[in-house]
């Protein structure tokens, strides 16, 4: 099972689309934006090059979570690879667990890369404990998005899962304020952002870099979405693999 997880991770790292959208894209966006707005500060006095680091890391993690789950999962289900695994001694739950675990591993490159670029190019510096808290929050916070990806992959065909995952990913990134600071939203958009898991996910990071630690409300919203989407994913997985 460990080898299965390793192989799964390896194959995604060989996937060009994953590398471009997930690893290169957030870093590039960060470099552009941080060099334009980086010197300004937000209303709490945190420099934008730090706020943007969190936003772009969140976007990269969100994209990674969805890309390494939805489409590969739908494809494997449809192409018969899942059936090939089902007739090995590997239990059904281990297949999903491995998917979840590898998707979590694959979130790390974008989180770490954006952070490293922020340190090297923008000279961002924080106490080590704050870095650790940030990465941990941003890492665990991706679980709802992976669950969403797996739910999409269990529900839709590979052809339909591709645009659906893209739509969810961009929708969540946009509505959650990962691309534009949440302050520029009007009140309607702010209300929308307030119910998205992505806004609260990024807010976990924004609070940590602001030095305030995570807000309970953010944790609850992200965890709540995690539970709801996790149950949906489990239900859809069962439905997709039921043995009639």
């Amino acid at each position, binding site marked *: *099972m460990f*080898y*299965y997880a390793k*192989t799964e991770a*390896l*194959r*995604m790292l*060989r*996937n060009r689309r994953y590398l471009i959208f997930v690893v290169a894209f957030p870093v590039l966006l960060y470099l552009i934006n941080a060099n334009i707005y980086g010197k300004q500060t937000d209303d709490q006095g945190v420099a934008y090059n730090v706020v943007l680091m969190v936003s772009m890391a969140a976007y990269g993690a969100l994209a990674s979570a969805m890309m390494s789950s939805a489409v590969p999962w739908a*494809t*494997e289900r449809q*192409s*018969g*690879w899942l*059936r*090939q*695994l*089902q*007739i*090995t*001694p*590997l*239990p059904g739950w281990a297949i999903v667990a491995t998917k979840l675990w590898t998707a979590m591993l694959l979130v790390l490159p974008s989180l770490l890369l954006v952070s490293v670029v922020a340190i090297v190019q923008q000279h961002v510096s924080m106490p080590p404990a704050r870095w650790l808290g940030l990465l941990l929050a941003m890492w665990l916070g991706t679980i709802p998005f992976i669950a969403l990806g797996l739910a999409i992959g269990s529900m839709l065909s590979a052809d339909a899962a591709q645009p659906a995952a893209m739509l969810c990913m961009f929708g969540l990134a946009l509505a959650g304020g990962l691309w534009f600071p949440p302050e520029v939203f009007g009140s309607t958009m702010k209300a929308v952002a307030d119910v998205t898991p992505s806004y609260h996910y990024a807010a976990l990071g924004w609070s940590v870099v602001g030095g305030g630690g995570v807000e309970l409300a953010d944790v609850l919203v992200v965890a709540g979405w995690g539970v709801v989407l996790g149950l949906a994913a489990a239900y859809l997985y069962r439905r997709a693999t039921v*043995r*009639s």
Partner: protein
Amino acid sequence: MNAITFDRVSKHYGDVLAVNDLSLAVEPGSTVALLGPNGAGKSTSISLLLGLLRPTSGRVSVHGRTPDEVVRDGEMGAMLQQGALIPELSVKELVDLVRRLYPRPLPLDEVLELADLTGLAGRRANKLSGGQAQRVRFALAIAGAPKILLLDEPTAAMDVESRLRFWAGMHDYAAGGRTVLFATHYLEEADAHADRVVVIARGRLAADGTAAEIKAGVGGQTVRFALGGQPSAGLDRLPGVTAVEIADGAVTLHTADPDATLAALYRGTTLDVRHVQLSGADLEAAFLALTRES
């Protein structure tokens, strides 16, 4: 104990009856061909054996246990009709991935050797030809050293050379006392590679025997005569006779050698043989007739 048992198994898909009251027992160590036209229920039978489908009625057992238990213990391997590979992985990585999921797998080199993939070990799955991909799927089926190997139309998409290499690998694998069941719609494949042929049509068992018996039964000739009320005992022991059918007072003897059968019928029995009809049919036509009428 039987390697594979179908005990009055039926499988419906809605109104369609894919497998209809099928009973079958396969002994360990044998190589059995499941022969039948498209839509005969071959793939459904294999899915039932693997626990991928549940029978509507009846019972499927493998080594006396349920398919799920046997799959979990890694005693069964299969090459299904559809089964894409992971494009980003190499042949060797794919085989090793599946191999490591089994408790007692074959060594990696041996799997590659048996499937004739040693020269392709480093190639990515999306760079393989159709026949090569089929051979990889064969390798995945045998990687865990399963005692029972199921192959669903394994030579589809293979060219002549790939076929030859594939069957050689299959025979090498079966030689270790393992049980192999392969589905095919080619009579020649069943003839050349199985020690027993099970013919199914429309989900029902149509014939069961060695390849020679099936050929004689379906493709051999028949001797028909009126039996009336005379006893039929011993007719099946006449030379050349492979099957005996009695209906409406007439006997039909399927025979591989009608001359010998007739001679023995006249000289070796005391039967009053009347209204004799001899008929022969060509192999394919008879096979089609056999699978159509059932």
